[in-house]
């Protein structure tokens, strides 16, 4: 994971040659006990406690690129997405809705896979659990807008909380197998618990989501509802990934024993990430129920989980937005190009996956990173 493109590394060492030299000067022996009391540097030194100004702060900060470009890009994408139903046919709008739902699932999975280093093959279980819960609430209680969504998120979180404590004790491939088993377990449960889930037939005839007493029937309205909720989900995950807690998760991904030696209770951190990812996946399930108005056991089966993992890898694990792009690609190939290939969409996905692994080892997000740094 730490492999940098060779050219990049050379560039960097050339750029820091001067710094090396100045470091060498600094390494000269100093009188004992004075190593923190460095020479005052420029105006910065004035009025600040000794030792504080030793380093320009910017060195410690990680200024990857100016904040303006990504912010502008994000705003443009959001505006484009918001305006999309005004220009698209209903079918295209529905596809875009499906992409958003799946993207939220993939991005929540990326918090586990890419940020925390927990490759889960059972993440669809929490997605499906959320979808069933949202459907059930819509049928039996109310489909007034935030409620089914919240029920989905809560159920996803609960299911993840109940199963995650076992999962986060395992590492690497064992974690993968354990989550696969947990996912299959919930899949079986969905298939056999007829009275609640409708068994293999699925939960059908879920009423439309309602906003202010009015059902959202038009594809465009459903889309806007899904878009708003998904953006909220993306924002939550993005904030978490950028926080000190997110940095700790990346530390665990890189070197868990070291994190423990630094005093981080890593298992609790991983568990919290697992539950959060489960909650967001559950919310995505809630959106699925609102959009498809049908939930089947396949929605929490292995195929869905594997496709989500595929989306994360294609997009570039760890970047979050890359996972969203990967999800778009997966849905486009499966639902738009697939039908024209006599149902061989999965085959094409396989080919795309192999191509990505060979050509872009860090996924789509790796392309930008290479140029940006």
């Amino acid at each position, binding site marked *: *994971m*730490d*492999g*940098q493109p060779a050219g990049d*590394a050379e560039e*960097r*060492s050339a750029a*820091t040659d001067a*710094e*090396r030299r*100045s*470091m060498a000067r*600094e*390494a000269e*022996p*100093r009188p*004992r*006990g004075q*190593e*923190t009391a*460095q020479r005052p540097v420029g105006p910065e030194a004035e009025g600040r406690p000794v*030792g*504080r100004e*030793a*380093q*320009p*702060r910017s*060195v*410690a*900060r*990680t200024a990857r690129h100016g904040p303006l470009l990504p912010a502008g890009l994000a705003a443009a994408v959001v505006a484009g997405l918001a305006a999309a139903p005004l220009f698209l046919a209903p079918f295209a709008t529905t596809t875009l809705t499906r992409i958003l739902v799946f993207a939220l699932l993939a991005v929540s999975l990326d918090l586990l896979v890419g940020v925390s280093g927990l490759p889960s093959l059972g993440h669809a279980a929490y997605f499906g659990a959320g979808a069933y819960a949202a459907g059930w609430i819509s049928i039996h209680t109310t489909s007034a807008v935030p409620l089914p969504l919240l029920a989905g998120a809560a159920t996803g979180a609960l299911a993840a909380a109940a199963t995650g404590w076992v999962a986060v004790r395992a590492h690497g491939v064992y974690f993968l197998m354990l989550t696969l088993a947990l996912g299959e377990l919930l899949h079986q449960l969905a298939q056999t618990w007829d009275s609640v889930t409708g068994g293999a037939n699925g939960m059908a005839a879920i009423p439309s989501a309602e906003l202010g007493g009015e059902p959202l029937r038009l594809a465009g309205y459903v889309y806007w509802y899904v878009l708003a909720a998904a953006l909220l989900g993306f924002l939550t995950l993005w*904030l*978490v990934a*950028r*926080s*000190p*807690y*997110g*940095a*700790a998760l*990346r*530390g665990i*991904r*890189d*070197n868990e*024993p*070291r*994190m*423990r*030696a*630094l*005093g*981080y*209770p*890593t298992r609790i951190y991983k568990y*919290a990430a697992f539950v*959060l990812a489960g909650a967001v996946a559950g919310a995505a399930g809630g959106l699925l129920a609102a959009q498809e108005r049908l939930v089947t056991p396949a929605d929490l089966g292995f195929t869905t989980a594997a496709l989500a993992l595929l989306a994360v890898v294609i997009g570039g694990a760890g970047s979050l937005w890359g996972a969203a792009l990967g999800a778009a690609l997966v849905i486009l190939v499966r639902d738009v190009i697939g039908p024209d290939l006599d149902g061989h969409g999965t085959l094409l996905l396989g080919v795309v996956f192999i191509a990505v692994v060979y050509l872009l080892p860090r996924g789509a997000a790796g392309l930008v990173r290479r140029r940006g740094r």
Partner: protein
Amino acid sequence: MILNCTGLHKHFGALRAVDDVTLTVAAGARHALIGPNGAGKSTLFKLITGLLRPDAGRVELAGRDVTRETEVRRCRLGMSQTLQHASLFPSMTAAENIALAVQRHTGGRIRPVPRRQPHVHDRAAQLLARVGLADRGRVQVAALSHGERKQLELALALACDPRLLLLDEPAAGMSTAERTHLAALITDLPASVTVLFVEHDLDLVFELADTVTALHLGKILTTGTPQHIRASDAVRRAYLGTADREELFR
């Protein structure tokens, strides 16, 4: 006494890696552990840091029994370590590595909300400067030299504000210049930081340590001042199988 190990045993099958070791480290000491390969130094270290549980015996940190505590808890109680092979976060820059250690030990809870943490960045920059990596903060760990990684790891350990600092072969693989810098750094540590270190370079041991414990085949041979160790026949025999002082200490 900052560290009190009593009757520590650790066996791997028939191998008695640590065999009834009782070791006391005085507060403020610069205490070295020496011994030939296989003497049990690394295992003893792991028992002290909590990476391994002893089969018998107890470990006390500042009078508190920590034998059953995890390494996470021991770190929170003021124990901090560097490993023989620099153990860092390879996908991050040097500054990000230190910030990760600093944020755990200054500035309260780790929250899932982005926030500016000027004190964390200041402290990280200060620590970088202290270990001689002032201008290397933005460099990816993968691009650091071996010696620089060891310096960075020391900064990570110092970021925990330790009372007891455990260094496992801190100078292994370092250049002469880096070694000199490391020696100065350890010498300059305040007396509130006790240092217990394993080192093969006996010159460095005798330069830094005020107390030396020699281990052999899992048992303590002797503990004493550097002069005492230099004069000890048992230590010479353990190292060389001979009591000829010239061969070992030049």
